[in-house]
């Protein structure tokens, strides 16, 4: 008996020793190691001396924060935050009457894909569009970096993930639904009728070429696939729009399994110019207040390209000829040839249909499958036909060449890269130079801040043959897509010129400031200028509806003033030359107000009182 124990015991000791020998304390495979950089090179390439300016702007989506974050490249410094879908007390966004109205009933939005406006397929620096999941699209004016319009929720669209991609001349911001539902919104069908009663939708939001104002365009009824990401065709493929989708199975329930059964899902190719024409001719039906084209009844506007399992990104190369679809559950990315697609459509080279939409024969439209690595998600481009594909599972970026299809280099990302953004890397003329990997995980690469970990964004030098990691930045949650634009394309103003302020309640002289009353509606015209809020006291009665119109009459850069009203949950920031209003119901008492944005040596004295008298 004792001997048996001894043998077992000895065996266990031996096994333990063996195990200790076998498992290294750190991964030995090279690709498993986190990215490192050559200190001297990286420091030189990213160091922007105090007072010097960056070369590029990066506009990064802020995901569920509802914001856009503005970074300088190559320093990766966070310069500014543009609130879009959430209130942001730092700039008073969501507190004044106009921005409150724009936010509507929502206090959040899951912002995924910024889309810079384009002219001839190149960034023109006018506007930035950005989607969010509740079916809305926002327009930010890059003249003043402010959100000017939130459009939506767009009818029939549910889960506006595949958005806000713009066409090459910013004719449309395109969107597609990630979650199919019975239409119109509000109608109900049992979940077991998903395959037939639930519908996907592609929506084209019309953009006014002068003002950028968004308006309802037209829509296309789609099978209940989950549309994921889109990209507009350019140059030879201008006039087309491409969308990835998963769940060609039309499955419900536990989608991670049920929607991953088929080897191929679809990329939908839409001839949007043909659809636009059909809509203009009055084809289609009105559903939910918008003209919806049914491809069954309006043939020739939608085709399906089979693509490797559950594709996530679809990216059109700068020449418009190659369409790169990345099946996220594969080790290859698929390149389609636009000319072959056109030939296949002409020859009716179909293998079947989905709800009347022809499915093109894979072999006829595919150019090549490129073995980029595991879990390819998105592709960006550089000059000279270079392509860069993010690999989520491999946690790396692969560099490969369009045309020769060779994969020439890989750089590890820390960790689990999602989107990537190269300098003007989704336009007709990419700059190369810099690329930012937008990673989902950052663990261990920053000072610990507890369980809520920031995301990581890594700057990569793509100016030479080998990609080189330059810099780690820790970005606000949660960057999905980002776009990088050459700084000299933007010409922001720094004050609102007095001549342009046509606000009916604006006053430009302290002599004109004061309180007027109409019944129980009180309007206070207030002047903000260093270092007084005029009038210094505002007297009203209990129950009055008070509108305070604040004009910052400064015309000096950086002279912002604030108006914080205690106990009323009001804080607005008014930029030089701007007028904003806040409206509230007065409650009895004395409430101090003060300038919330440090403005001058006597900022602290910039204060006053709201005096609300008891009802007589």
């Amino acid at each position, binding site marked *: 008996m004792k001997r048996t124990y001894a043998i077992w015991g000895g065996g266990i000791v031996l096994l333990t020793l063996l195990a200790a020998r076998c498992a290294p304390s750190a991964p030995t495979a090279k690709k498993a190691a986190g990215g490192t950089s050559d200190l001297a090179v990286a420091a030189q390439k990213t160091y922007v001396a105090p007072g010097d300016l960056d070369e590029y702007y990066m506009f990064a989506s802020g995901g569920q924060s509802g914001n856009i974050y503005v970074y300088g490249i190559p320093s990766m410094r966070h310069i500014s935050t543009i609130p879009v879908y959430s209130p942001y007390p730092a700039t008073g966004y969501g507190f004044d009457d106009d921005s409150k109205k724009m936010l509507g009933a929502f206090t959040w939005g899951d912002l995924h894909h910024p889309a810079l406006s384009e002219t001839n397929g190149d960034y023109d620096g006018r506007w930035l569009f950005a989607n969010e999941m509740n079916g809305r699209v926002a327009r930010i004016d890059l003249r003043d970096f402010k959100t000017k319009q939130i459009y939506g929720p767009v009818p029939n669209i549910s889960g506006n993930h595949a958005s806000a991609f713009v066409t090459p001349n910013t004719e449309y911001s395109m969107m597609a639904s990630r979650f199919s539902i019975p239409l119109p919104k509000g109608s109900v069908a049992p979940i077991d009728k998903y395959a037939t009663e639930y519908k996907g939708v592609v929506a084209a939001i019309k953009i006014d070429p002068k003002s950028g104002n968004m308006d309802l365009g037209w829509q296309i009824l789609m099978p209940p696939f989950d549309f994921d990401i889109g990209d507009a065709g350019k140059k030879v493929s201008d006039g087309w729009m491409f969308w990835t989708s998963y769940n060609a199975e039309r499955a419900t329930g536990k989608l991670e399994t049920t929607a991953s059964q088929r080897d191929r899902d679809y990329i939908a190719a839409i001839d949007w110019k043909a659809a636009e024409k059909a809509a203009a001719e009055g084809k289609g039906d009105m559903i939910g207040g918008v003209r919806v084209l049914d491809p069954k009844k309006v043939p020739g506007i939608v085709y399906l390209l089979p693509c490797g399992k559950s594709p996530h990104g679809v990216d059109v190369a700068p020449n418009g000829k190659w369409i790169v679809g990345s099946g996220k559950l594969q080790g290859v990315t698929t390149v389609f040839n636009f000319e072959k697609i056109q030939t296949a459509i002409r020859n009716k080279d179909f293998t079947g249909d989905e709800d009347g939409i022809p499915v093109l024969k894979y072999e006829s439209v595919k150019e090549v499958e490129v073995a980029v690595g595991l879990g390819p998600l998105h592709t960006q481009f550089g000059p000279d036909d270079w392509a860069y594909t993010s690999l989520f599972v491999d946690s790396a970026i692969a560099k490969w060449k369009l045309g020769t299809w060779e994969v020439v280099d890989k750089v590890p990302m820390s960790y689990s890269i999602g989107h990537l953004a190269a300098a003007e890397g989704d336009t007709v003329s990419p700059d190369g130079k810099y690329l930012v990997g937008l990673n989902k995980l950052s663990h261990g690469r920053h000072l610990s801040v507890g369980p809520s970990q920031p995301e990581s964004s890594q700057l990569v030098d793509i100016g030479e043959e080998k990609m080189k990691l330059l810099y780690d930045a820790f970005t606000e949650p949660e960057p999905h897509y980002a776009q990088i634009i050459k700084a000299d394309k933007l010409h922001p103003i720094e004050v609102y010129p007095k001549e342009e302020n046509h606000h009916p309640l604006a006053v430009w002289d302290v002599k004109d400031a004061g309180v007027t009353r109409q019944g129980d509606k009180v309007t206070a015209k207030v002047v903000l*200028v260093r*270092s007084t809020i005029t009038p210094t006291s505002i007297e009203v009665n209990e129950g009055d509806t008070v509108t305070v119109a604040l004009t910052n009459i400064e015309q*000096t850069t950086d002279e912002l003033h604030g108006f914080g009203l205690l106990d009323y949950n009001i804080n607005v920031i008014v930029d030089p030359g701007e007028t904003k209003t806040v409206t509230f119901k007065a409650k009895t008492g004395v409430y101090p107000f003060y300038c919330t944005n440090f403005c001058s*040596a006597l900022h602290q*004295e910039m204060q006053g009182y709201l005096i609300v008298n008891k009802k007589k």
Partner: protein
Amino acid sequence: MQAVLQRADRFLDRDLELKERALVIVAALLLTAVYVFPLWTLTMYAPQYPEGLRMNIYSYKLEGGNQGQDVKEINLLNHYIGMKDLVAEDFTEFKWIPFVVGAMGLLFLRTAVHGKMASLIDVIVLYGYFAAFSLWSFGYKLYSYGHNLAPTAAVKVPAFMPPMFGYKQLANFEVYSYPAAGSYALGLVIVLLGAAFLLAWQDDPGRAKRAG
């Protein structure tokens, strides 16, 4: 005594030659510079204003740099020390200087036409008086702005003389004050008139006679 007066009369009665008349006409034309160019420029730098605040003083207006914004900014800053706002209405100079310069120009032309030494001396004296008075007036204006500070000012500073010519440090500001193109033109006018006078003096018509 009689002889001295006679000599003076003869001197004053002397005719101006073509080149002297031409110089006077050029001087008259130069006067028009004050309608185009500023007379004085003040530039102020502070850590918060690395690009500087600029104020150009013309014969008829104040002009701020940065599309006029700089004068507003200077006034905004000055209100903390209780200085009066720099506004065009307070500068009576803007009304009389353009008028006086115009009148001077006409007198210059008259001198060129009459072509008499007496007339040349008249305009030199008048112009000298005008220039000196204008400079004094400008200096006094600066003095008044720096000395009439509101007693209720938030920041109390001792009365001061802003720089008229050159550089002075005022609190966090480096202030530079220099004449501008208009003043240089006015200076050149003096030189031209002086040159005309010296030339006329040298063309002594009696000199040839005496030598003969």
